[in-house]
């Protein structure tokens, strides 16, 4: 399940008011999430959650659900 905070970070970065983001949502389904914006979203997530990803971890993430798992793995419970 993706958190409200992650949703908010993505929507703010893409200047979207509302979009139904789900675990299975992939970048190409979200308006404005192109290859140039992709990196801005990653940077916004790293800043928003105060985490640092490895390049390979980002490449392996197939959808937003994977991004959420990646964030969770970096934040101590």
């Amino acid at each position, binding site marked *: 399940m993706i958190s409200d905070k992650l949703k908010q970070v993505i929507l703010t970065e893409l200047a979207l008011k509302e979009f139904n983001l789900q675990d299975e949502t992939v970048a190409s389904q979200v308006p404005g999430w192109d*290859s140039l914006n992709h990196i801005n979203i990653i*940077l916004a997530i790293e800043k928003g959650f105060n985490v640092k990803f490895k390049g390979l971890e980002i*490449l392996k993430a197939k959808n937003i659900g994977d991004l959420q798992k990646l964030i969770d793995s970096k934040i101590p419970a």
Partner: protein
Amino acid sequence: MPLAIDFEKLFSLFTYDKHDPLLFGSSLFLFFFLFVLIIQRLFSNQKVLRIYSLLFFSLFFYYKAAGFYLFLLLFSSAFNFIFGRLIFESKTAFLKKIFFTIALLVNLGLLGYFKYTNFFLQIINDLKLGTIEPLDIFLPIGISFFTFKALSYVIEIYLEMLEPIKSFRDFSLFIFFFPNVLMGPIDRASAFLPQIEEDNPITRADVGRALFLISCGLIKKYAIADYISLNFDERVFGFPLRFTGVENLIAVYGAALQGYCDFSGYTDMALGIGLLLGYKLMDNFNRPFKATSVGDYWRRWHLSLSTWLLDYLFKPLQISFRSMRKWGTALAIFITFFAVGLWHGPNWTFIAFGLLHSLYLIVGMFTQPVRRRYTDKLKITGTKFHKFFQVVFTFHLLAFTAILFGSPSLQYTLDMMHQIFTYFHPEVFPQFVQAYTTVFIIIVFGYVVHFLPKSVEEKAQNLVIKMPVVLQAVLFAVVIWIVVQFKSAEMMPFIYFQF
């Protein structure tokens, strides 16, 4: 008179001749292909036989094009099959990385050796760092295409997007598959491999679509690309200073259309042939000259290469440079398009072609907010006028890169630009139309068809699909007749073979 069989000639049909590969448009290919197709259909419910016959024919097809460099193809298949497993089965991330690095080095090392050794020796000589004689290296046809295809398999396994396939036979078919082994599309392992295990039922719609694609491909290649090239473009590109700016400019428009029709014509044929065998290959083009920006163009041109580079080179670079923000993206674009240029061949014109594209994209990225502000102010953002302007502007940026692509050296590019900008002479235009009427009609026809809405193509395709078989056969016969009329006595190689 008794029928004499020339066994020597018959034998030569089965042996390698570097001047006579099995081109899709040749009658010999048609003969062999019909034979393969009959086997495929006769034994449609015997998967093993079907796969082996395809493997065998694919190897023969490659042997006809590259002789005993066929063993390089076999090596690529065996090596990447083994390394796919090694990467997947490695217990530690470190070991995974080691095997992956070896796989990358071997694949790119082979590609580099065959394609770029003499280019680098030439650079060493030019920079006066030494005097080294060029080596006698044969360039195995299609090496850039099958290397990238094989690399997609190991990369996808490394990124945990794919599990290694168990069958070496099936993996080899992915690498050898004759419709795409020489000139792409660079199909992804994850999309192609599952099709081998399916039962590949071929519907009537598939046959109609294949017929439509092959017909389009034949016309694009032989009636448009070759005709323009042989009868006009080669002359202007060969001696730009002998012509005025008018002919030079039309030759540039011709070259852009020729490049597209040559390559997309080949792809159409490959897709059609694949469909008849029960395989759906990746589409490579989506009306590239309709692009509203250079970025949009790369989402429409040579898609199997552009998405490959986007996923496996641009994205990793962009992620590594992310702390530099836009400048990091600019650096990633620069490196990716340097690779695009180099991939096309060991020639400075290709490298300049790639770098020019990177310049377009980087300038486009940095000026995007300013341009947006202006179009907003003028209230034209997103209007038809705006789009029309974007298409025309983008087309001319691309047409300029077509000069680099078609020129034997940078000097020829400069000569053409010189003629266009300083020796234009518009009064020559009526004489040009009179002297090259057919060329002119073909160029106009080619662009008009290109800019028709996609729905027209879909309707034409559906019409062919729904036609009775007899009519389909008549249509195909008409296409062949047209092609024969246009086909020059000399066989023109597909431009992309050399890559």
